[in-house]
């Protein structure tokens, strides 16, 4: 995963790059957007689970960057020394840290890359947690199409995403939902800065 053509506001983003992964992650969601999965093209006849494109080895800096990004200064999430001395024995992830893992693991070319679609809107999310993620674990994801529906003129797409550690222990699951442009042409409009939604 490497940086590609940089967006105009890249310098503003780069001020916050503190982690090794943040320096490598592709910040330009227009890259390869022509090839993202599209609402009306996904094959719901084939509900087979697939692996994500990348694995995510959790470093303390990753957990801290998420907590800081959502303005949470809970010392269990941000202070390694404090957390080590606590009964947890180490950093506790903010529960929504799963967002970071999901974007990293889905990658650019993998199934589920529609979560990067310019023009997508987030109506709400469903998450379940079985064990806290821990520093040092290597997480892989499995995902499959879960739902596709129209409601009040909006087009909703859902994938189920399961997150496992290196020992195949299921750590968390989510039903990831977005309202998407319906067709590839609608996405192309968004890539040109034209609204590709009818609602």
């Amino acid at each position: 995963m490497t940086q590609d053509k940089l967006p105009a506001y890249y310098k503003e983003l780069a001020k916050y790059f503190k982690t090794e992964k943040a320096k490598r992650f592709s910040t330009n969601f227009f890259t390869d957007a022509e090839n993202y999965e599209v609402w009306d093209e996904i094959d719901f006849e084939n509900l087979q689970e697939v692996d994500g494109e990348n694995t995510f080895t959790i470093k303390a800096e990753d957990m801290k960057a998420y907590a800081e990004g959502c303005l949470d200064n809970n010392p269990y999430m941000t202070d390694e020394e404090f957390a080590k001395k606590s009964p947890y024995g180490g950093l506790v992830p903010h529960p929504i840290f799963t967002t970071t893992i999901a974007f990293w693991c889905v990658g650019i070319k993998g199934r589920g890359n529609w979560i990067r679609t310019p023009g997508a809107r987030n109506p709400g999310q469903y998450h379940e947690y079985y064990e806290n993620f821990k520093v040092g674990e290597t997480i892989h994801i499995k995902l499959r199409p879960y739902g596709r529906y129209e409601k009040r003129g909006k087009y909703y797409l859902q994938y189920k995403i399961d997150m496992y550690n290196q020992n195949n222990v299921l750590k968390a699951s989510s039903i990831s939902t977005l309202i998407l442009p319906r067709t590839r042409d609608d996405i192309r409009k968004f890539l040109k800065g034209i609204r590709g939604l009818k609602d």
Partner: protein
Amino acid sequence: MEKVSFESVKTGMVLAPVVHYVNQETFWKYAVGSFDYNPVHNDAEWVKTAMPFKIPKTVAHGMITMSFMTSVVTNWAVPAMLRVSKIVSKFTKPVEQEWTITCTGVISEKHYISKGKNYVVVDVKAENQAKDLVGLSQIEVVFPD
């Protein structure tokens, strides 16, 4: 570390609120922490014409609103060694720059299952400075003993 027992928790109990002012810097910082670089949050020029939310301005990530709502619960649960087991969130209005978001939570349900599986449900809402609702969550918290 303040131990909290299942028996001691009552429905109607109010948790401490979480309040955050947000602006474009907040959106950029969150994008870096979450790897969600969707241009609707980051690109002021693109959004002027693309307008996914029908407004020509960048808006906050839904997931930062979900995070703010979740922090109401983790601020209480994590020091007490309680575990968040489920979060169901809905976003009702896009969050704009220079808004102040206030998240409040109340324990709404208490589920008596068995030792180690008992849990409560916390209803959390997020509002802007005009008291417009921007998000809702139901967050389950399991008691280990």
